[in-house]
């Protein structure tokens, strides 16, 4: 129940990062920190069902001071949180695997037991093993898909400009101009995720 809210799915997952001498943790952090060099803000923009996502490396648990006991992690973990359109993990894994496969490899190859992308069921099973149940999932727009929101934002920007452009124009022909705008908005594809 809590992993879903309306038509949205909340993925929260912890992936143990590989230890050893190869410094997987530092390589992974450096790679993640550079993902926003993508013109659309992230390679995740290629996955059209994703609303928002984040990566965070949890390298330790914070000590609360006496009288609390100190907890030390034996592995570092990659936290991946993703909010997307869907009711299960498989469409997300499929889309990530096909649309940003190179990035999936470069991120998760630093994680323990990453099975690769060759077999999607193995990859989905891997994500499911690392998934945590989201106990409470709050979502402001549980029914609106990414494309619907982007189309709405496109219309908002275009109509605001239309109003500004037309406020000093003669009223004659306003109907035709509006109809042309609306037709154009209906014909245009939704903007690319990350572009607005």
């Amino acid at each position, binding site marked *: 129940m809590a992993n879903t809210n309306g038509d949205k799915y909340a993925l*929260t997952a912890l992936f143990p990062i590989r230890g050893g001498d190869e410094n997987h943790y530092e390589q992974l952090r450096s790679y993640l920190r550079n993902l926003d060099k993508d013109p659309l803000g992230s390679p995740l923009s290629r996955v059209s069902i994703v609303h928002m996502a984040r990566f*965070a490396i949890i390298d330790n648990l914070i000590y609360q001071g006496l009288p609390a006991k100190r907890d030390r992690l034996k592995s570092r973990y990659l936290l991946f949180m993703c909010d997307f359109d869907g009711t299960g993990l498989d469409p997300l894994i499929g889309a990530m695997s096909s649309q940003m496969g190179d990035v999936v490899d470069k991120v998760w190859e630093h994680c323990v037991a990453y099975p690769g992308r060759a077999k999607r069921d193995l990859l989905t099973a891997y994500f499911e093993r690392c998934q945590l149940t989201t106990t409470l999932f709050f979502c402001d727009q549980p029914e609106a898909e990414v494309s619907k929101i982007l189309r709405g934002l496109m219309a908002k920007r275009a109509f605001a400009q239309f109003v500004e452009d037309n406020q000093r124009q003669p009223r004659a022909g306003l*109907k035709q101009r509006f109809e042309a705008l609306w037709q154009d908005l209906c014909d245009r594809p939704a903007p690319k995720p990350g572009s607005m």
Partner: protein
Amino acid sequence: MSNFARNEYGLGKAVTFNVITPMSRAGTRLVKVLLTIFDWRKQTQKTAKELSFLPFVHWVVIKRDEFPHLVPEQPKEELNYDYLFFLSTFNGPWGPYIDAFADVLYEPLDTVWFWSHGYPFARPVSRLKAYIDHNQVESDHAYSAYPGASVRDVRAALALYKQLNEFAAQTKNLDEAQFDREYNRLLIRTQNMLGTFGTHPETD
């Protein structure tokens, strides 16, 4: 700045916020029940919705023996506490975000976080801010499909699109004068939905 979603034009309005706090076993059971009730009864989320700066929030309870253990070579965690993950996305600066939480949502916040070690209660807010600052984990990458749009922008965009769609259908067969009148009415209805939005260039 890796907490901010962005695109090539600059920083976005979606900021990630991760706070991880330790809980006792007894607290875990209670917090799970509370969060499940808050999740199930959506009307309990009304106040959080009214704040209008939270697109997504995950609360996750993870018991001390539930950290993923995938292969025998991976050492098993031996922890003293269960953990509560508060993972949210918000619009706006950090300080006012915490202030608003402490002002408006202090009761549910205290009810849930009371069971976390060292939680100082939501009021006075300075102690809450220090607690959050101490327990916050920075994101290494954040993404939003619409980084330049806040919760209010998205709500306005969806409502405006609906209005325009209806207006286009209803005015199809009107003459110029009738269309003019309806257009003025549309502007009155939608004038608060037309604000600009977008990402902002980063300053060095």
